[in-house]
C-alpha cells in the first residue's frame, strides 16, 4: 500500500506538471496566432478580414447592450457609495474625482472584461470543443487549413479591436450613470459633472484602462480556445470546457488586473 505522503507528493507533482504544460500550451497558441496574423499572407494562408469582422460583431458589437447596462449600474453605484463615504468628511464635491478615476482606471476595463469573458469565453470554448469532437478540426487540418489560423487568429484580432472600444464606451456610460445620480442627489448639473471630470482626467488614466483591456482580450481568447481544443470526452467534456473557460477567464482577468495595476501605479 503506497503511503499517503508519497501519493500526496505525487499528486502535487502531477498537478504542477499539468499547470506548467497548460501555461506552455497557451503561450504557444498566442505566438502561433500572432504569427498567422502577421505572416499568414506569406505562407499562403492569410487571416481573412471578413472573418475578423464577423468575430468582431459576435464578441464586440453584440456585447454592447449588456456592457452598457452593467457600466451604467456601476457608475451609479460608485456615485451612491462615494457620496455616502465622502459625506463623513463633508467632501461630497470630491465625488466626481473619485468616480472619474476609478471608472477609467479600474471599473470600466474590469467590468467589460468580465462580461465579455462570461459571454464569449464560454461560447468560444463550446464552439471549438464541439468542432473537436465532431472531427471538424481534423477536417480543417486535412483540407490544409491551420486551425489556429482559421479559428484563433481572427478571434484574437477581433478581441483586440473590440475590447478596448467597449472599454471606452463603458468609461462614458459609467460616467453618465454617476453624473445622473449626482444630478439628483447633489443637484450637480450633468454638464458641470463632465466638465470637472474631464478636468481631473489625464490621457494616462484612460490609456491605463485601455492597456488593461488589451491584456484581457488576450486572456479571454487564449483560455476559451485552449479549453475548446483540449476537449476530448464528448458532450460532458464540452460542458467542462465552457465552465472552465469562464471561471479561469474571470480569475485570469482579476489576477492580471492586480499585477498590472501594481506595476503601473508604482
Amino acid at each position, binding site marked *: *500500500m503506497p503511503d499517503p505522503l508519497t501519493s500526496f507528493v505525487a499528486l502535487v507533482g502531477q498537478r504542477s506538471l499539468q499547470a506548467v504544460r497548460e501555461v506552455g500550451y497557451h503561450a504557444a497558441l498566442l505566438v502561433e496566432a500572432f504569427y498567422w496574423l502577421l505572416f499568414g499572407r506569406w*505562407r*499562403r*494562408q492569410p487571416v481573412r478580414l471578413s472573418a475578423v469582422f464577423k468575430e468582431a460583431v459576435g464578441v464586440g458589437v453584440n456585447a454592447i447592450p449588456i456592457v452598457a447596462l452593467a457600466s451604467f449600474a456601476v457608475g451609479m453605484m460608485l456615485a451612491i457609495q462615494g457620496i455616502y463615504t465622502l459625506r463623513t468628511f463633508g467632501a461630497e464635491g470630491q465625488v466626481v474625482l473619485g468616480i472619474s478615476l476609478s471608472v477609467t482606471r479600474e471599473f470600466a476595463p474590469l467590468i467589460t472584461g468580465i462580461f465579455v469573458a462570461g459571454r464569449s469565453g464560454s461560447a468560444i470554448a463550446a464552439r471549438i470543443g464541439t468542432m473537436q469532437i*465532431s472531427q*471538424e478540426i*481534423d477536417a480543417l487540418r*486535412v*483540407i*490544409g487549413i491551420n486551425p489556429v489560423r482559421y479559428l484563433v487568429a481572427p478571434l484574437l484580432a477581433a478581441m483586440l479591436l473590440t475590447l478596448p472600444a467597449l472599454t471606452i464606451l463603458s468609461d462614458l456610460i459609467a460616467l453618465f450613470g454617476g453624473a445622473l445620480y449626482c444630478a439628483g442627489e447633489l443637484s450637480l448639473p450633468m454638464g458641470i459633472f463632465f466638465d470637472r471630470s474631464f478636468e481631473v482626467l489625464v490621457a494616462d488614466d484612460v490609456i491605463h484602462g485601455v492597456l488593461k483591456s488589451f491584456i484581457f482580450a488576450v486572456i479571454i481568447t487564449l483560455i476559451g480556445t485552449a479549453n475548446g481544443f483540449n476537449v476530448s470526452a464528448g458532450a460532458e467534456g464540452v460542458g467542462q470546457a465552457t465552465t472552465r473557460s469562464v471561471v479561469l477567464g474571470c480569475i485570469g482577468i482579476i489576477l492580471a488586473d492586480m499585477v498590472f495595476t501594481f506595476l503601473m501605479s508604482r
Partner: protein
Amino acid sequence: MNASDLAIDVKNLVTHYGTRKILDGISFQARQGEIMVIMGGSGSGKSTLLRHLLGLHQPTSGSISLLGKDITQLSADAMYDLRKNMGVAFQGGALFNSMTVGENVELPLREHTRLDENTMRIMSRMKLEVVHLAGFENLMPSELSGGMIKRAALARAIVMDPRLLFFDEPSAGLDPVVSAELDELILILRDAMNMTIVVVTHELESAFKIADRITVLDQGRILMSDTVAAVRASDNERIQSLLNRTPRNEAINPDEYMERLTREIF
C-alpha cells in the same frame, strides 16, 4: 511493382498512444488508381492507421509515403501542397455546422485557389451532382440525413479532384440500400477520375464489392495485404473468423486473469 506507381507506401510503421503500442510494424502498399480496403474488427488499429496516413499524428517510427513523399519528414509547406492532392471523408462527415452544404464543399476551393465566386459555385454544384445531392447546397448539415451527410462529405473531399481519397467507414450507420449506393459511387470515382482510394471499413460485403486489394489488420498488426480472392482463400484462423463472423475463442490464462482482476487493488 515500380516505386513510381505506388500511391501509398507504408514501411514498418510503429505508433503508440501514451505508452500503449497501437500499431506494430505495419507495412503495405497501394498502387495508383486502385481501391485499397483496410479491414479489421473494432480496436484493430484501423482508425489509428488512417489518422497516421492523413498526417494527423507523428508515428513513433517508420515511414509513410504518399504520392512519393514521406509525410513523416515533410516540411509544413510541402505538406500543405500535398494536402491539395488528398481528399478525406470522415466517418461522421465532419461537415462544418456553421456553414451550408454548398459552403462546405466550396471551402477547399476558397482556401487553395483564386477562382471567382461563380466558378467555385459551379464546381461545387458539379461535385454535388456527382454524389446525387444537386439542389441541396443551401441546406445546413443539421437538416440532412445520415446518408446525405456522408455524400456531402464525399463531395467536399473530391472538390479539388484529389489523386488520393480516404473514406472512413462509408457504410457505418446506413441502411443497406444507401450503403450499396455509396459503394457504387466509390467505384465510379475510381473509374472516372482514376483516384487511389483508401476505404476503412469493417463491413465485409462492402469491402469485397469495392476492393481491388484488402489489408486485414488485427491487434495492431497486418494479417495480410492481398487481392480479394487471396483474402477469401486465406486459411489464417483470424481472417476466417472475421469472414465467418465467428466469435473469438481465446484460451484464458488463469494467472493473467487473476492478475487483471486484482490489479491496482491495495
